[in-house]
C-alpha cells in the first residue's frame, strides 16, 4: 500500500504545493526538462528466470455476496503442502477481517488512529469460521479446538492457532475444508463497503506463511503492517447480483447467469493473495499492453483518469518488465474507487491494483494518477513477485518500490515526475528527500512495521528514506549499474521471499563491499551524512623570507614588498558529519573563471582541498551533481567569496507583491 492515499500523499501533496506555491510566488520562468527516454535495451546479462514458485497453499473458494447486507457466505478448500523440513502439529490462520470487529482489536484500538487511513470503523466487520475439516479424515471439526484469540492478546482474533489431530510430516499434503461467513465493515482501510461499492481484501481464512524451518510467520493484523503469505494457485467463484461489475485477482475463466445473479470464475496461478471488488456503477476499459490484458474499472465521469491510468501502464509495464523481469500473469486489473471510497485506493494485490483521486486529478499539471498507478504497478514486482515479509521488513517492498516508482516516473517525465506545468516542476526524488531528510536518526529503517513509533515515521523512513538511500547509491555508482544490480535481485528472487540479507548479497556481487557497508549502515544503523564547508582561505604566494643557513653560509632574505601577486595558495576543508561514508565530488571555481573538480572517497572526517594557481579561489561546491541525496543539509555544501544578493528571488518576490496588491488592493 502506498503513501499516495493518506498521510504521506496528503503530506506530500501539501509539501509539494507549498514548494510550488513558493515557486509560483516567485513565478519561476523557464520550462521543465524534456522527458527522458525509457531505459535502453542494452542486452544486459541476467540470471535465469524461475517461472513458477513451489506452491504451499492453494485455495479454491466459492463466495456469495449479499450486496444489501454486505455479507459474504463462503466455502473454501486449501490444498496445503508441508514444504518445511519438519513435521507440523499446528496451523496458523490469519482472520484479518476480524481486525474490524470492535474497537479493542489490535488494529482499531489505537486512540490516535494509527492506521494508514487513521479512520475508525463506523459499521464493524468480522469473519466467522463455521467449520474446518480435513478432507478424507473423520470429519472432525478442527475449529472447535482453536485458540480463541491471537497470542497474548485476548482482545484480538486475527491470528488464530489450530492444533492438528496428527502430525503432518515434511513433504506431506492435506486438503482443508472451511465454511465461513464475512460481515464487511463500512470501508475503514482497503476492505469494506460504501453504499453499493464493495472492496473485498483480507476476506477469507488464510494460512500464515510456512517458513522452511517449520514455523509459521504469523502475526496479528497491526494497523501499520501489511501482509506475508505463501505462493499458490487460486480458483475462486464469485456470486454477485447481475447488475454488479466485478474486478478480481486473476483471469475470468467462466461466467454464468441465473435468476438475476451472475456466477464468475477466476483463476490465478502463482500468487499469494486474492482480492476483488463489486459495484453496480463501474465503467470499464480494456487494452492489451505488453502482452497483458489490462482492464480498468472506474466510476462514471472518470474517463480522463482511466485514460491516464492506462497511459501509465503503457509506459510503466514495459519499463518494469525490462528493469525487473517480465510480468508473468496474463491479466492486470486496475480499480479506481469512487471518491467516497478513497480508503480502498492506492493498494496492491496480485494482478489487481487500486488507484484513486477525484475526477479532476489529471488537470493542472499534477501527476497524481501517474504516481499512484506507477507505484501500485511496481508492487507487482516488489510485493507480488518478490514476496518479502511486509510485517518484519516493510522497506523491502514499500521502500524498493518507491525507488522503482520514482525511477520509472523520472524516466517518463524527467524532473517533472510529480508535477509539471506553468513552468514549474517537482520530481519524486525531491519529494522523497524532502520527507526523509534529517530523519535518518529517528529510527532504523530495517525494522518491523509495528515497531515504528508512528505511521508517519514509517512513511518517512520505509517509503521515502529507503528510496532516497537507493537513489543515492544509484547516483554514486551510476544509475544503469545500480538499476542492473536491482534487476539482478528482482530476477534472482522472483517467486521467492527475499530478505535484507539476500539483497545485500546481490549488492556485494553487483556493486562492492563499500556499497554494502553504506546500505547496512543506512538501513540498519540509523546512519546519516552531512558534508559541509566552513571557510575559504586564499594567500598570495611570495618568496620565503627570514634567516636561512645554507652551504654558502647564513643568508637573510627580507619579505618582498607588497605587490600584485601572480600566484595564490588556496585551501578549503570539507567536513563529513555522520557515519555514512559516501564518495563525493568537490567543485572549485576560481576568480579567473577556471573550474576544478576534486574527488573525495568519503573516508575520514575531513578532506583538505589545496590549490596553488594564478587566481584566488572564489567558491566551493561540495557534491555539485547532487548525488548524495542523503546529505542532511545542502545549505552548507557551498561557500563563495561573492555577496549573496539573490536577484531572482528579489525580482519574483517584488512581482508577487505587486500582483497581490493589484488583486486585493483598492
Amino acid at each position, binding site marked *: 500500500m502506498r503513501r499516495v492515499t493518506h498521510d504521506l500523499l496528503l503530506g506530500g501533496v501539501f509539501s509539494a504545493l507549498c514548494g510550488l506555491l*513558493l515557486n509560483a510566488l516567485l513565478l519561476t520562468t523557464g520550462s521543465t526538462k524534456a522527458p527522458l527516454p525509457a531505459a535502453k535495451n542494452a542486452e544486459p546479462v541476467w540470471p535465469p528466470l524461475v517461472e513458477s514458485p513451489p506452491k504451499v497453499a492453494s485455495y479454491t473458494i466459492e463466495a456469495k455476496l449479499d450486496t444489501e447486507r454486505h455479507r459474504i457466505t463462503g466455502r473454501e478448500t486449501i490444498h496445503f503442502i508441508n514444504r518445511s523440513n519438519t513435521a507440523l502439529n499446528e496451523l496458523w490462520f490469519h482472520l484479518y477481517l476480524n481486525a474490524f470487529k470492535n474497537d479493542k482489536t489490535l488494529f482499531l484500538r489505537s486512540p490516535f488512529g494509527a492506521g494508514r487511513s487513521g479512520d475508525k470503523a463506523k459499521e464493524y466487520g468480522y469473519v466467522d469460521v463455521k467449520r474446518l475439516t480435513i478432507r478424507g479424515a473423520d470429519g472432525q471439526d478442527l475449529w472447535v479446538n482453536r485458540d480463541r484469540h491471537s497470542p497474548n492478546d485476548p482482545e484480538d482474533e486475527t491470528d488464530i492457532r489450530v492444533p492438528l489431530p496428527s502430525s503432518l510430516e515434511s513433504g506431506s499434503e492435506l486438503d482443508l475444508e472451511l465454511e465461513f461467513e464475512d460481515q464487511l465493515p463500512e470501508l475503514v482501510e482497503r476492505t469494506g463497503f460504501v453504499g453499493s461499492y464493495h472492496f473485498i481484501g483480507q476476506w477469507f481464512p488464510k494460512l500464515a506463511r510456512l517458513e522452511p524451518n517449520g514455523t509459521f510467520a504469523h502475526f496479528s493484523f497491526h494497523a501499520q503492517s501489511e501482509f506475508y503469505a505463501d505462493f499458490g494457485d487460486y480458483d475462486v467463484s464469485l456470486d454477485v447480483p447481475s447488475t454488479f461489475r466485478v474486478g478480481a485477482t486473476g483471469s475470468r475463466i467462466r461466467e454464468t447467469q441465473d435468476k438475476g445473479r451472475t456466477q464468475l470464475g477466476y483463476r490465478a496461478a502463482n500468487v499469494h493473495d486474492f482480492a476483488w471488488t463489486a459495484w453496480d456503477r463501474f465503467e470499464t476499459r480494456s487494452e492489451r499492453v505488453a502482452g497483458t490484458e489490462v482492464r480498468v474499472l472506474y466510476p462514471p465521469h472518470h474517463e480522463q483518469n482511466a485514460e491516464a491510468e492506462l497511459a501509465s501502464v503503457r509506459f510503466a509495464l514495459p519499463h518494469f518488465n525490462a528493469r525487473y523481469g517480465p510480468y508473468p500473469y496474463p491479466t492486470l486489473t486496475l480499480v479506481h474507487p469512487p471518491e467516497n471510497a478513497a480508503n480502498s485506493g492506492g493498494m496492491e494485490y496480485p494482478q489487481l491494483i487500486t488507484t484513486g483521486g477525484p475526477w479532476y486529478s489529471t488537470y493542472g499539471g499534477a501527476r497524481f494518477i501517474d504516481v499512484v498507478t506507477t507505484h501500485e504497478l511496481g508492487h507487482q514486482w516488489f510485493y507480488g513477485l518478490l514476496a518479502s515479509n511486509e510485517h518484519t521488513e516493510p522497506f523491502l517492498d514499500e521502500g524498493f518500490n518507491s525507488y522503482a516508482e520514482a525511477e520509472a516516473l523520472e524516466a517518463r517525465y524527467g524532473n517533472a515526475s510529480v508535477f509539471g506545468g506553468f513552468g514549474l516542476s517537482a520530481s519524486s526524488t525531491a519529494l522523497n528527500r524532502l520527507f526523509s531528510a534529517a530523519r535518518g536518526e529517528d529510527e532504523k529503517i530495517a525494522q518491523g512495521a509495528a515497531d515504528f513509533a508512528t505511521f508517519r515515521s514509517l512513511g518517512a523512513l520505509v517509503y521515502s528514506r529507503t528510496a532516497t538511500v537507493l537513489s543515492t547509491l544509484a547516483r554514486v555508482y551510476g544509475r544503469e549499474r545500480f538499476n542492473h544490480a536491482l534487476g539482478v535481485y528482482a530476477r534472482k528472487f522472483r517467486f521467492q521471499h527475499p530478505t535484507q540479507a539476500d539483497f545485500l548479497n546481490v549488492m556485494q556481487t553487483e556493486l562492492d563491499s563499500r556499497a554494502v557497508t553504506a546500505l547496512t549502515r543506512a538501513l540498519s544503523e540509523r546512519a546519516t551524512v552531512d558534508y559541509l564547508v566552513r571557510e575559504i582561505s586564499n594567500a598570495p604566494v611570495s618568496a620565503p623570507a627570514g634567516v636561512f643557513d645554507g652551504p654558502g653560509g647564513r643568508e637573510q632574505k627580507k619579505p618582498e614588498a607588497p605587490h600584485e601577486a601572480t600566484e595564490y595558495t588556496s585551501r578549503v576543508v570539507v567536513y563529513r558529519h555522520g557515519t555514512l561514508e559516501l564518495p563525493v565530488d568537490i567543485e572549485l571555481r576560481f576568480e579567473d573563471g577556471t573550474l576544478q573538480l576534486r574527488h573525495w572517497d568519503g573516508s575520514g572526517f575531513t578532506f583538505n582541498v589545496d590549490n596553488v594557481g594564478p587566481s584566488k579561489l572564489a567558491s566551493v561546491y561540495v557534491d555539485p551533481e547532487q548525488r548524495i541525496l542523503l546529505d542532511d543539509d545542502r545549505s552548507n555544501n557551498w561557500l563563495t567569496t561573492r555577496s549573496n544578493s539573490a536577484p531572482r528571488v528579489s525580482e*519574483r518576490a517584488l512581482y508577487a507583491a505587486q500582483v497581490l496588491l493589484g488583486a486585493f488592493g483598492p
Partner: protein
Amino acid sequence: MTDKAENRLDRLSMPAAAGVLLWISRTVFGLLASYPLVLAIRATSMTAGPDGDAVLFQPGSLLLLELLRLGAPWLGSAAEFALLSLALFAVLELIPLSMALDLLAVPGRTLLERLARALRLFPKFFVLGVIGLLVQAALLLVASLLGSALKPAFASADERLQTIAPLALLGLGLLACAWFGAVLDIARATLVRHVAPSGSRVALAQALDCLRQQPLRVLLGSYSSMVGSALAFLTACWLLARFVPLEPSGAAVALTFAVHQLATLFAITWRVRWLGSALELSDESD
C-alpha cells in the same frame, strides 16, 4: 500651442501620469513588503552558493524544497509579516489612488496639491474601503453558506457537479465582489470630483444610484479592466515559460523583470482606463 492641442495633450498625459504614479506606488510598496521574505530566504544560505539563487529554480525543485525544509520557521514568520505589510500598504495605496483619480479629473494642479487633497480625502476613502471589505466578505460568506446548504442536494449527483457547484457559487461571489469594487471606485470618483466636501455615505449612495441606472456600463467597464489585467499576467507567464532561458544569467533576470513590469504596467493601464470611466459615470449621475 492652441488650447485645443493643450487639452488633447492633457487628455493623453494625465492617464499616463496616473498610471506611472500607481506603478511607482505599487513598486515601492511591493519592495517594502517583499524585502523581509527575501532576507529570510537569504538567511538560509540556500542562495549563498556559487550559482546564487539560481539553484532554487532548477527543474525538479530539489533545492527549492530544501529551502522550504530548512527555512520553514523563518519563512513562515517572514511570509506572515509580508502579508501584514501588504495589508497595510493596500490601505496606504488609497492615497496614490486618490491622486490618480485627481489627475484624471482635474488638470492643472501640482503634485503637492494633489497629495494634500488625497490626504484630506483619505479618511473618507478609508471608510469606503472598510465598507467595501465588509460587503465583500458578506458576499463571499453568503456564497459559501449557499454552497454548504446545497451540498445535500448534490449528494446524489455525479462527482463533477458536487465539485463544481460550490466553486461556481464562490466564483459568482467573487464576481459580485468585483462588481461592488466597481461601485466603490465610482464613489471614490465622486469624492474626488466634488469640489464641495461630501461624505462617504453620500458618495456611496450616488454610486449605487449610478449602478441602478447603468448596471451594464458599470459591469462591462470594471470587468473589462479585470480581464485585461488577467490577460496581461497570463501573457507574461506564457512569454517567460516559453522564451526566457532557464540558465542562470543576468540577462534572464533582467528580461524577466522587464516582462513582469510590463505586465504590471499593462494591468495598471486597464485600471486607469476604468477609473476614467468611473469618473464619467459619476459625472453623469450627478
